[in-house]
């Protein structure tokens, strides 16, 4: 019974750690992509200089905008050529007759507002097109919400199973000591005096149950971080080993301890009403 409840805590915490690792990392990745998301406002090629400036003024009036940077068609071409490296010379022939647009690069204060702001800009005069990476972000957030909901349901179910098992384990101990507890109460023991050994037992069960998950977290995340080759894609940056493993271990230990304490407190409660 004792072993079963430790195993229940271990299983629960393993799942908690796995889900949190996934969710926190996807969140981190989504956020870092999102941080870089800009709205590219392509100014109509037929727009006059005045009209372009006027559009700039209108953009400046927008709320929730962090920055607006103007980049002329010549600068755009230059950027393009640099970013293409060797093949950039291909674009040199366009230097005389630049097909690119003048561009305003708009950044939202809050990445979540990007879409809203982009849609508003689409309605402005002399705007040819508005580009932003809505698709990737949207799907990342959708996936993350989905994963989070499933994870939460599973974790809550497991937490309650573990609490139930622990409280049953402790109930057996209490049952054996029922008479002792009754007499303790009758000679004037406080509830805490009676409760604390069970409290400690629950805490111990919880902490013992978190040893294996924490060990697996430390080694597993080390592997993920160093040998899985994820570091080769620099667009996917998972959370750095330190302090992530320490933080997550702390959370795992805290949840383990809470499960244990909750289980024990629940099982003692009804024996104290004497």
């Amino acid at each position, binding site marked *: 019974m004792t072993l079963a409840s430790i195993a229940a805590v271990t299983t629960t915490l393993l799942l908690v750690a796995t889900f949190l690792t996934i969710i926190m990392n996807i969140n981190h990745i989504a956020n870092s992509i999102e941080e870089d998301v800009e709205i590219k406002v392509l100014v109509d090629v037929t727009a006059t200089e005045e009209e372009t400036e006027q559009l700039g003024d209108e953009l400046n009036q927008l709320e929730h905008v962090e920055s607006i940077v103007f980049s002329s068609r010549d600068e755009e071409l230059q950027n393009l050529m640099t970013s293409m490296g060797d093949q950039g010379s291909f674009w040199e022939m366009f230097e005389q007759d630049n097909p690119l647009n003048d561009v305003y690069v708009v950044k939202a204060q809050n990445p979540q507002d990007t879409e809203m702001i982009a849609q508003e800009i689409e309605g402005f005069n002399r705007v040819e097109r508005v580009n932003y990476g809505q698709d990737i972000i949207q799907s990342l957030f959708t996936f993350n919400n989905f994963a989070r909901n499933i994870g939460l349901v599973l974790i809550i179910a497991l937490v309650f199973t573990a609490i139930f098992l622990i409280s049953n384990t402790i109930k057996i101990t209490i049952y054996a000591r029922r008479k002792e507890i*009754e*007499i303790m*109460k*009758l*000679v*004037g*023991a406080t*509830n805490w005096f009676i409760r604390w050994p069970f409290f400690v037992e629950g805490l111990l069960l919880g902490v013992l149950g978190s040893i294996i998950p924490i060990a697996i977290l430390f080694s597993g995340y080390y592997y993920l971080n160093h040998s899985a080759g994820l570091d080769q894609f620099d667009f996917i940056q998972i959370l750095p080993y330190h302090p992530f493993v320490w933080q997550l271990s702390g959370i795992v230990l805290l949840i383990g301890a809470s499960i244990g304490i909750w289980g024990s407190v629940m099982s003692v409660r009804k024996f104290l009403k*004497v």
Partner: protein
Amino acid sequence: MIEMQDVQKTYPNGVSALNGVSITIEDGEFVYLVGQSGAGKSTFIKLIFREEVATSGKIEVNGKDLLNMKWREVPLLRRDIGVVYQDFKLLPKLSVYENVAFALEVVEESPRHIRKRVMEVLDQVGLKNKARFIPDELSGGEQQRVAIARAIANYPKLLIADEPTGNLDPDTSWGIMKILEEINASGTTIIMATHSKDIVNTIKRRVIAIEGGLIVRDQHRGEYGYEA
């Protein structure tokens, strides 16, 4: 010491055990509680140390209002009251010494005080030489004396005994009564429920008779009043 006004107790199953009891018991008194089986004596006793809570009325013990008492104040009330049960309520796996020490550990006395005090009360009930025995190795009278030692270990102002001589032969009963009288002589108030006509009629004290959950008689130096 104890003040009850129109106290009623109805158990959750609907049985009405006390139907309006009013009484005052002063410091240092020795009170017998008599009455037929089922009259409500044990209920009366349990209300005093709040093993049960009265349904209505007013109970004051040592100046504490028992009906409007919070759960966490109950331990403090009980530390001033020693209780002796008919079935002793000793822990079978603990020695005589440990059974008595237990009551002092629970109230978090220092180990040194506990050692001294346990031997003192065991001496008082004449069991100093059996401190290492476990309850099963003792006679009924000896077990009852352990229960008394435990009840008085914490210097209670009030000692309650529910039929302390119920299962004992006459000689042993007189021994127990002698101990209770000594405890009373030292200033402790004693309330004792009993069915023993001999004891009540010999050691004359205040007698409170309960019938059907009501006090029907309250006499100083009273008689038992029922056929044994």
